[in-house]
Structure formats: structure tokens, C-alpha cells
């Protein structure tokens, strides 16, 4: 099955409903749509933050996300996948990124969205800096995120080696 896939990295906000409509419009084979939206929280490790700034590796980020979208489409029967990740300055309450997966059945849509999120959280070349009262600090990677991504091995592992 060839999934309709879209990957965008942009400074601008996005609209989840518009993205869902773009994949499902006019189709009658889509039975399940899962969306994940990551939102900027007002705290980091319990301390309030004023903003988040996201840096990424242009070229590598797009290529890597597209490869993982293709892997998701190979593993699960997907009709469509859209991944949008923002960069730049983001305020608490604003959206950071989204994943939409569309399939005929719910299990595939859920699994693919979960798989893509684990990748995006742990291995996509994005870095978050938060603005706190005492200055700007880079967010440290969480061990729990790495563990979640490990669930998808062995396929996930092949990307770790060159």
C-alpha cells in the first residue's frame, strides 16, 4: 500500500484539522485517524518557562523523518501520514509538532503514530532550549524517551549503526 505522506519542518503554526482533512478528503477507505499534538508546556522539570526555542539540522531532519514515515508505511497498512515539526521560538500553550496517521483500521493508526512519536522524541535532530527566570538552558534528553524508542528494535537499531 502506498501511503500519502507529508513531512514539513516550519516556523509557522499548523492546524491539525486542516492536515487531517487534506489526507481524508474524498476517501471512503479511511476508517481510523489518530493525531498526536505536542504542546509547549509552561514548565520544565517543575520550573516555569517563558518560552521554548527549537533548533534543528536542516536536510538531515527532513530526510530522517521521511525515512521513518516510509518505515511506518512498510510496517502498517497506512493510507496517509503527515508529520509537521516547528522550529524557532514557541510560547507555552502553543503547538510544537504533530503526527497524523490514517488507516482503514485503528490498530495500524495507533501503532504508527506511537512509533513515529518515539522516533521524533529520541532520534530526530531537534534540540530544545527553554527560557527560565535564570537564563536559557538546553533541555536534557530523558532516559525514558530512549527506552520507549527501544521498544521498536530490532528495526530501530539498524539506524543506530551506520
Amino acid at each position: 500500500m502506498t501511503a500519502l505522506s507529508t513531512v514539513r519542518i516550519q516556523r509557522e503554526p499548523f492546524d491539525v484539522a486542516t492536515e487531517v482533512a487534506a489526507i481524508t478528503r474524498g476517501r471512503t477507505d479511511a476508517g481510523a485517524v489518530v493525531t498526536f499534538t505536542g504542546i509547549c508546556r509552561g514548565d520544565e522539570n517543575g520550573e516555569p518557562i517563558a518560552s521554548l526555542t527549537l533548533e534543528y539540522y536542516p536536510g538531515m531532519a527532513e530526510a530522517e523523518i521521511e525515512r521513518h514515515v516510509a518505515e511506518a508505511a512498510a510496517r502498517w497498512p497506512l493510507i496517509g501520514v503527515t508529520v509537521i515539526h516547528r522550529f524557532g521560538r514557541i510560547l507555552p500553550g502553543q503547538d510544537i509538532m504533530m503526527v497524523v496517521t490514517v488507516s482503514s483500521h485503528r490498530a495500524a493508526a495507533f501503532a504508527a503514530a506511537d512509533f513515529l512519536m518515539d522516533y521524533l522524541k529520541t532520534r530526530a535532530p531537534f534540540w530544545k532550549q527553554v527560557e527560565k527566570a535564570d537564563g536559557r538552558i538546553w533541555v536534557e534528553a530523558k532516559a525514558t524517551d530512549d527506552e520507549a524508542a527501544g521498544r521498536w528494535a530490532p528495526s530501530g537499531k539498524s539506524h543506530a549503526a551506520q
Partner: protein
Amino acid sequence: MSLKVRYFAWVRERVGKPEEDVEVPASVTTVAELVTWLSSRGEEYAHAFANPKVIRAAIDRIHVKPQAPIDKATEIAFFPPMTGG
């Protein structure tokens, strides 16, 4: 050999530049050796690479391990663990 080296996040901030073209001695053959060689180039590099365990690398936009050979590389990037999503 001639290489483009790119830095991201706090590695970029410590090195003080987002990228540079470097001429690497022939004796430097792996990513780990490149880190050692870069660290010898000045305080800012020594600071950026002070703890090599938390540095990630990519050769031509593919994640690699420290042992990866660099002979076919055009662009090598160094950055901290990713915190996207």
C-alpha cells in the same frame, strides 16, 4: 582531507560557530579521532567536547558511532542528544 563540520545546540554555542571547513590530517580516521583532534584546536573546542559520551555525530546526515570511519565523509555534524517532539 577537507571536511565540512557542523555544530548544533550547545555544541554550536561552545564552539562559537555553526559550521566550518577544516583540513583534517591523514592520521585522523574515525569520528572519535576527529573529536580528539578538534579538541586540540583551542579552548572552545576542548569545552565543547569535554564529555565525548554526550556528543552525538552524523556523517552526511546519518547517525554514526564514534568508531565510524570518516574517509568517505563530506559533512560531519556534532550535537547533544536530541530533544525533539
